[in-house]
């Protein structure tokens, strides 16, 4: 038996948001009596960090500390409409709606502060630490809390905002496929290094080196988690998972995690990430959604690396030991393709 090393490459782009638009999201922002801000959404946090990202966006837009912002998802009585968390639309669509709602609330907040400080609202800026002050004169300031109290109990002003973001729905041409699918794309490229055992057909992914372009890493830790987890899922799709192992026949269908194969914690592949940020024009602070696309390049990169290792093209997923072994036998033995250059 021989262990063959293989290396494969793939690169992709990914559309952000629902194809052809028509998928609005809304947000409402309001201040509590003492200047904390509540963001009401009906968007879903699936674990991807929807609540956290919208909280940071609201904080940045309002110009108040993130600790003073709370996000509420998702109650159909209190949260305005959102199409949902899918199609990599959360950050882009909901993020933009939150920016608008928070911008409007900020406008009210600066107007209220201006009245208290007896200056023009356009001369004010926020320090992001809980105060509003006159540009160039930090000592002439008022806290957000005092502003909120004055606005609501002295001036009769609400610090609140509404936001909606919609790419109007459009159509596709039946003859040419002409369309305006989405407004921005994320990108990725990666190299997979793996080993193939030519006696068992077993494939073990050893290392991934990647570059992901995400527009803007709104929260670098959440991006990192998405990318590491997504690559894990990509490896799993490439090598293990299917609900129908004999597709298109429906035999041997797995019904639990004993029969539905997935890699465990031991198979999380060492992954060296580079994150690139080319802001998209209409995205919140330029950020595109990294969540969906990050698994995609792994599948073909693994297939290409298996070919590089033993000379077997696995064009049907998943790349099981059986397929690899049959391919090797068909070729009369492993045919390593050598170090790519």
């Amino acid at each position: 038996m021989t262990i063959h090393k293989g290396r494969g490459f793939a690169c992709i782009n990914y559309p952000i948001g629902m194809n052809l638009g028509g998928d609005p999201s809304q947000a409402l922002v309001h201040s509590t009596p003492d200047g904390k801000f509540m963001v009401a959404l009906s968007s879903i946090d699936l674990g991807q960090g929807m609540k956290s990202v919208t909280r940071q966006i609201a904080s940045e837009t309002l110009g108040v500390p993130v600790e003073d912002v709370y996000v509420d998802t998702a109650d159909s009585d209190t949260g305005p409409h959102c199409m949902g968390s899918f199609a990599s639309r959360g950050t882009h669509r909901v993020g933009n709606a939150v920016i608008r709602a928070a911008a409007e609330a900020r406008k009210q907040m600066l107007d209220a502060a201006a009245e208290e400080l007896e200056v023009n609202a356009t001369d004010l800026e926020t320090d992001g630490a809980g105060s509003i002050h006159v540009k160039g004169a930090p000592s002439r300031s008022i806290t957000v809390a005092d502003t909120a109290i004055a606005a609501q109990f002295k001036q009769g002003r609400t610090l609140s905002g509404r936001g909606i973001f919609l790419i109007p729905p459009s159509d596709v041409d039946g003859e040419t496929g002409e369309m305006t699918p989405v407004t921005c794309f994320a990108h990725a490229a990666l190299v997979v290094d793996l080993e193939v055992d030519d006696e068992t057909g077993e494939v073990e992914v050893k290392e991934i080196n990647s570059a992901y372009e995400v527009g803007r890493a709104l929260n670098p830790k959440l991006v990192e988690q998405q990318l590491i987890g997504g690559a894990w899922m990509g490896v799993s799709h490439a090598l293990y998972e299917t609900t129908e192992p004999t597709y298109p026949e429906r035999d041997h269908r797995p019904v639990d995690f004993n029969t539905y194969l997935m890699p465990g914690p031991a198979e999380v592949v060492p992954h060296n990430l580079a994150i690139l940020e080319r802001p998209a024009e209409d995205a919140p602070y330029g950020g595109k959604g990294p969540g969906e696309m990050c698994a995609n390049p792994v599948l073909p990169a693994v297939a290409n690396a298996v070919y590089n290792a033993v000379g077997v093209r696995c064009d049907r997923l998943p790349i099981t030991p059986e397929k690899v072994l049959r391919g090797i036998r068909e070729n009369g033995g492993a045919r390593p393709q050598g170090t790519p250059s």
Partner: protein
Amino acid sequence: MSSVEFRKDLFADERDDNLKEIGKPTIRQDILGHVTGRTPFYDDHQFDGLLHMRAVRSPHHHAQIRGIDTSAAERMPGVRRVLTAKDVPNNLNTLLSLINFGRDDEPLCAHDKVRFMGETVAWVIADTERQARDAVAAVRVDYNVLPHVLDVEEALQPNAPVVNEVYPNNTFDYNGKYDHQKLRFGDVNKAFAEADHIVEAEYQMSPIEQAPIETCGAIAAPETNDRFVCYTNTQALFFSLGTTSKLLDIASSRLHFIGGTAGGGFGGKVDSIVEPTAVLGAMLTGRPVRFAWDREEEMQVGAPRGGERWRIKDGVMNDGRIIAREFTGFFDSGAYVRLSSYAIVKCTGHIPGPYTIPNVASNIYCVVTNRTPATAMRGFGITAADFAIECHMDRVAETVGMNPIELRILNAYRDGDMKAHRRPAKNTALIECCQVAAGKAAWPISADAAAQSSKVGGGVGERGVIPASVTDEDGKIGDRRAGRSEGTSPSRRGTGKVAAGTRVEAKTEAHMQDPDMALEADRIGHRMGSASTAPPAPAPAATPAPPAPAPVAATPSHPQPTAPVPPAPQVQPSAPVPTPPPAAPEPYQPEQPFQRGLNRPGTSRFTSGFRRR
């Protein structure tokens, strides 16, 4: 060990890195609840007197329902009610009716026939889940088994069984005219004739389970004011609410949906089946009802990522330029279309991948088969196509004897290039990703490939224009079943022509409702687009005008990033940290640990819920 680096040096001129909160690794507000088990999920809303609902499911791929005998089940202990299709007020829907796409093709509960193994034919509502399961086994269904079809291309044959009468050709109808979605850009057949090599292959994606830790489920209960509350783990709250409203023929204002925190989704929680089912149970019993899939249902009844079959044909020149690319794709939607029809249009807009290819054609079919319906999953409509495209790129590289990364950089799309769906590319970054990934892996690429840039050379000459395109009218609805359609690939004999440059006006975002909703121009965080008129905008704001090098195999004169790119320093939040440090919450210390479980029949002792009376 893994590592992360932020390449702040790339595209730095298009980005403001002085934001206060954006770009910070702020810890999630909800994480403490998640890791201490205190976050309430839908299943934690355990009402007093909660009833449990289970489905009776088809054991056949395709069968006529001759009769259902529920009498034995109704007499079983604890059984409150057995429901069948006649109890569903409006038992026909399609998910995308909410955006007016497609025809209603799917019942919540089968009535005339079952179209896939596992389809719902009845439900039992009982006091405990055990009792419900036992009663499910006692429901007698008389089936007349019908011939079935499981393979997408067999389903297109004239003599294939009709799976779903709403789509009698076993295909979704596109644009009221064709049994597939077309893409036509340039003339692939002419280019194939001129190419040095033709590279063809077929790829197959098999169905994959989304596999969230928390399976799909909902708990519904009558509320006051003649309403129903529904706790759900849907990925799309109003999607599920709207679907429930339609299927149950109830005003949407009478539905109060609560969700927002789900234990994973990955696309598997948009289908809105558990919500109308649970609300129906609550409507008909007047009691709180829980309907949730077990793991087997999640894996075999819950919709997976669909199987997709792809054939790609490339026309390639000796120097590695791809001059034509043709796709024939088959999405296996299963018995009901759900979202597959939409994914095909999305995929059509994605073709031919992130490359600038002057001649592109594709035919993609949404095929109805006797299989568990497919639905969204991470990368919906794209993942399988990208698998095919990127495996194919390696085949092309091997055919022309070229470094696979250099081949991709050579063909990569750049700012200003015309895409096959007739819109110019912008904000591209494929080349930079290729260069950085190659550098990190120490995979050598040529100095020329390392010098390329997404911002340079795009849109020049032919790269920026829509070519005259050959069209055809193959594959009209019904032709295939009538034996009048031969192949499935884009036609070899064009019958029409669309003039060069033909396109309609692109849609952009809706008008800002109120100017107060706009972020100040100097606070948007980047310098992309015309909206930004920030004074210190250095370079051109919009698409940079390329210095017009020769088309395709261009060699821009000024070297940009070089091959093994030196690693940039790890990101450090640039702006000063806000003064008041976050009020660090006290570490979680439960007052009385291990006492939150419910000890009731039919309820797991490990349920971490609170009780509502």
